[in-house]
């Protein structure tokens, strides 16, 4: 039936001159052709299409059959397969490449997530053939095709484990490999131009399209991928893909070191400058640097003469970006890149001038956010390790300036406590023979100590909330008073002591006494209350909500526990405070 219709319409059309077929002819041709293919009459359809008499009909209308044809090919029914393939190659030869391109891309776009890999594998070769037929005018079409293909590939789940990458159930690896084959001739074309005149116009359209492809591949899927090193996975299609993308960048005249330093050497700061962000998205460059310095991908094409400090300075731009995100994968990459960039630098070598760069403070700020807010324990642990590493790399003066900045801006007792501990280590180091320096001894140290030894709200400061900071500060003070003898006074602490007593120790003592009295009273009344309502001891007294989720009610027992542990904490503070007071008193009492 459909077959008859098809031969009817084709016969009728044979008589029409100048290819001026009516839209009715198109509709009929498509409807009949589709049915024939779907019913398995592809052999007959093929014989009609290859008939020389029908050449102009096929040229005009043939591409419409791509849809049903591709569906058939994806079904992989053995008996029709050879004919369908033959039809496809015939169409690819005869029809206009522009229409074929539209038709093929339509099929790529329509693929649902389950059939993306198969559709791509099937259509990449035909697409390439069609694009090559476009000759010199293909640049924008290549761009369109690449962008469509990558958008589809980006929908595929990224393999996480080694086994997943090997099994490649969703086909991401196979698509990436196929994509590389697909772009090859276009890259070769540009490579030839680069080789011939040693220079290529930055605006060569095909080059720009390939650049966009590389940049997009770097942000998706590569930024999501955690590459396995060759020891874990010897043959990794994703690693090959990453390597090849960097090779393509280099082959189309983008120098990798220039890409690395783009954001550092750029003359003018152009926030949100569209063209730049489109051509060289910072996120893609961040991924590239991670590949270069963490995965050591494409090291053979990257110069080994850049200074470690310069590499760190460039990478800071990307670390800042990665650590400003909340996704675990981004944070992980940011931390890795920061670690690897720091490891290459010698300890105590980063000059204080670097702190003039915005990134050298925004990165630690972001890092503090990871340390205090990130829900993932392993990332927090890694974050702390990298944070300490970054401190170790600073020169003495830079450490000093960094600590001062962190104390002023971190707003987190835990982080401040950590910084104070570092200050103590630096003082300890400086007091050792031959390590003397002007930053952690004497006149510069005192202003820093003033930042450490202070209570933001005087006696009313919440001691529990500031516990970490207070304990480290008191420890530091005790350490200095014991370590630095009054007659030596290398740190200058003894001359500052009367001020510290007035501004820090006395308010601390008052605050401590007030808090203790308050909590003891609370505890007493709570216990008294409990006796009265002992029959109903489970009755809740207060409720807490976190993140819209009501926490289990606090029973009076739990409250008593909390109060008690607070009192223990105060005792802890008091013991150190008392020790300090003792030392001071001993000093005031002249030796008998």
């Amino acid at each position, binding site marked *: 039936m459909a077959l008859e219709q098809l031969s009817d319409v084709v016969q009728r059309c044979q008589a029409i001159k100048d290819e001026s077929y009516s839209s009715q002819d198109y509709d009929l041709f498509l409807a009949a052709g589709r049915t024939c293919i779907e019913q398995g009459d592809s052999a007959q359809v093929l014989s009609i299409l290859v008939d020389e008499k029908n050449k102009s009909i096929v040229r005009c209308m043939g591409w419409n059959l791509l849809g049903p044809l591709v569906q058939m090919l994806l079904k992989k029914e053995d008996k029709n397969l050879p004919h369908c393939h033959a039809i496809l190659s015939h169409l690819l030869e005869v029809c*206009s490449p*522009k*229409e074929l391109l539209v038709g093929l891309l339509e099929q790529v776009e329509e693929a649902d997530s389950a059939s993306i890999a198969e559709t791509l594998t099937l259509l990449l070769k035909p697409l390439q053939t069609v694009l090559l037929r476009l000759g*010199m*005018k293909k640049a924008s079409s290549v761009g369109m095709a690449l962008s469509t293909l990558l958008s589809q590939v980006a929908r595929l789940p990224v393999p996480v484990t080694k086994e997943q990458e090997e099994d490649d159930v969703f086909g991401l690896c196979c698509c990436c490999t196929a994509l590389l084959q697909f772009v090859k001739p276009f890259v070769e074309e540009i490579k030839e131009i680069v*080789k011939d005149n040693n220079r290529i116009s930055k605006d060569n359209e095909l080059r720009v399209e390939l650049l966009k492809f590389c940049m997009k591949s770097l942000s998706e899927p590569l930024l999501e991928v955690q590459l396995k090193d060759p020891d874990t996975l010897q043959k990794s299609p994703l690693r090959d893909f990453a390597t090849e993308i960097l090779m393509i960048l*280099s082959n189309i005249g983008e*120098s990798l*070191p220039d890409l690395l*330093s783009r954001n550092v*050497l750029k*003359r*003018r700061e152009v926030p949100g400058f569209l063209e730049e962000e489109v051509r060289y998205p910072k996120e893609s460059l961040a991924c590239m640097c991670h590949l270069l310095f963490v995965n*050591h991908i494409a*090291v053979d*094409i990257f*110069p*080994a*003469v*850049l*200074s*470690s*400090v*310069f590499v760190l300075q460039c990478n800071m731009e990307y670390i800042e970006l990665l650590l400003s995100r909340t996704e675990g994968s981004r944070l992980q990459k940011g931390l890795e890149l920061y670690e*690897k960039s720091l*490891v*290459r*630098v*010698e300890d105590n070598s980063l000059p204080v*001038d*670097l702190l*003039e*760069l*915005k990134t050298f*403070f925004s990165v630690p*700020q972001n890092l503090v956010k990871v340390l205090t807010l990130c829900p993932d324990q392993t990332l927090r642990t890694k974050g702390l390790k990298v944070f300490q590493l970054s401190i170790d790399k600073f020169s003495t003066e830079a450490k000093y300036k960094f600590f*001062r*900045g962190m104390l*002023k*801006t971190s*707003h987190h007792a835990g982080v401040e406590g950590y910084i104070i501990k570092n200050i103590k280590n630096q003082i300890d180091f400086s007091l050792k023979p031959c390590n003397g320096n002007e930053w952690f001894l004497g006149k510069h140290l005192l202003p820093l100590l003033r930042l450490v030894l202070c209570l933001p709200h005087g006696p009313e400061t919440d001691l529990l909330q500031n516990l970490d900071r207070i304990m480290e500060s008191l420890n530091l003070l005790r350490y200095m008073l014991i370590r630095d003898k009054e007659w030596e006074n290398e740190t200058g602490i003894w001359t500052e002591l009367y001020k510290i007593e007035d501004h820090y120790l006395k308010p601390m003592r008052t605050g401590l006494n007030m808090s203790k009295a308050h909590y003891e009273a609370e505890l007493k009344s709570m216990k008294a209350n409990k006796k009265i309502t002992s029959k109903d001891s489970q009755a809740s007294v207060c409720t807490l909500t976190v993140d819209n989720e009501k926490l289990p009610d606090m029973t009076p027992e739990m409250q008593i526990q909390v109060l008690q542990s607070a009192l223990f904490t105060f005792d802890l503070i008091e013991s150190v405070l008392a020790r300090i007071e003792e030392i001071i008193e001993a000093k005031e009492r002249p030796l008998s």
Partner: protein
Amino acid sequence: MTAEEVVTEGCSIPVEGEDITPKKDGGVLKMVKKEGTGSELPMTGDKVFVHYVGTLLDGTQFDSSRDRGEKFSFELGKGQVIKAWDIGVATMKTGEICKLICKPEYAYGAAGSPPKIPPNATLVFQVELFEFHGEDITDGEDGGIIRRIITKGEGYTKPNEGASVEVCLVGRHEERVFDERELKFEVGDGEGLGMPPGVEKALQSMEQGEEALFTIKPKYGYGTAGSSKFDIPPNATLQYTIKLKAFEKAKESWEMNSYEKLEQSVIVKEKGTQYFKEGKYKQAAVQYKRIVSWLEHESSMEPGEEEKSKVLRLAAHLNLAMCYLKLQEASSALESCDKALELDTNNEKALFRRGEALVVMKEFDRARADFQRVTQLYPANKAAKSQIVLCQKHIKAQHEKDKRLYANMFQKFAERDAKKEADQEKEQEKKPNGSAMEIEENGAQEQTAA
């Protein structure tokens, strides 16, 4: 001077050559393999182009620009490359080939550079210098201002617009010194002091303590007019030697706690107002922008401080809007007004100034809406009333103009499209030959229609 040969076990490359380190510690040894030409050496900051092959002492090659087929370029003396290179390449002449033996302290030290360079490795480079030239510091890299650094400065910050600078400058035109002075001024005021725009541009690229020679093309010099004051003819290329003795470095945001930020903001606001009164709108804007940058993302304020911060930010945005209006930068003014309105939805000045900005942008409908809101909220505002009348006139005039425009628009569009297509074809068909153009054009049209 020491040409020594150290024989170490397992070394296939002899360690020999002239010690070229300033400290004379033998950290970088140089041996010239082929003499270069000329007498000029590259200067700090110059962009240099080299080919190189790097090997370890045992002869293992770890890197080669020749294998990559691409020359390596970098800015000399700025710490972009390992120390040995900044020292070594600075001693080379164009065309020279030399061997540099670099001790780890002048290369990658104890850390190495994984995965290629092991810890504590001495590196051997064969370097060929191809060319070098001064650094182009213009935004568009049009070669308009070329810098050669005589003495490198310190630090990473550079003076920006509005920064107060202390400089020594000598201006030359064809060997004649036409301007020589030592002065303190604010970047942005240069024009009033008889400096060409290129000098201020140059200053903004300099580090503290830097001394450099700038070659300034007429576009960034005195242009086609020349300068009668200095007796400079039209279209003259100028040479300036500038030393940036000092400049005021603004305190970074992270160096201040919220209290200090508020305190500084008040001072800076006063400064801005002073500039504004003197008609220095650019400098005033710089000051107000500092307030915004300090306070905008400050999240750790006490309630009392937050209130103060809001008042300061609002004032800063409103004043910025005013500066931008004076500077004819309507879209920036609009942005500032929007920010101000985020803080205070019915702010009279913000609404009025946004209206003014929109008038400049010829968006009379939206401008009228803003002025109308002002009169609704603040009936006493007479200026807004007269602005509404003005807007209405403009809207009417524009309406008339549109009518006339639309009348022959379609024809214009058709003409324009045709022209565009022809242009495109011309571009594409330039190469084969001109006479085939007409035919190709028709062919192309058919294709686009398909």
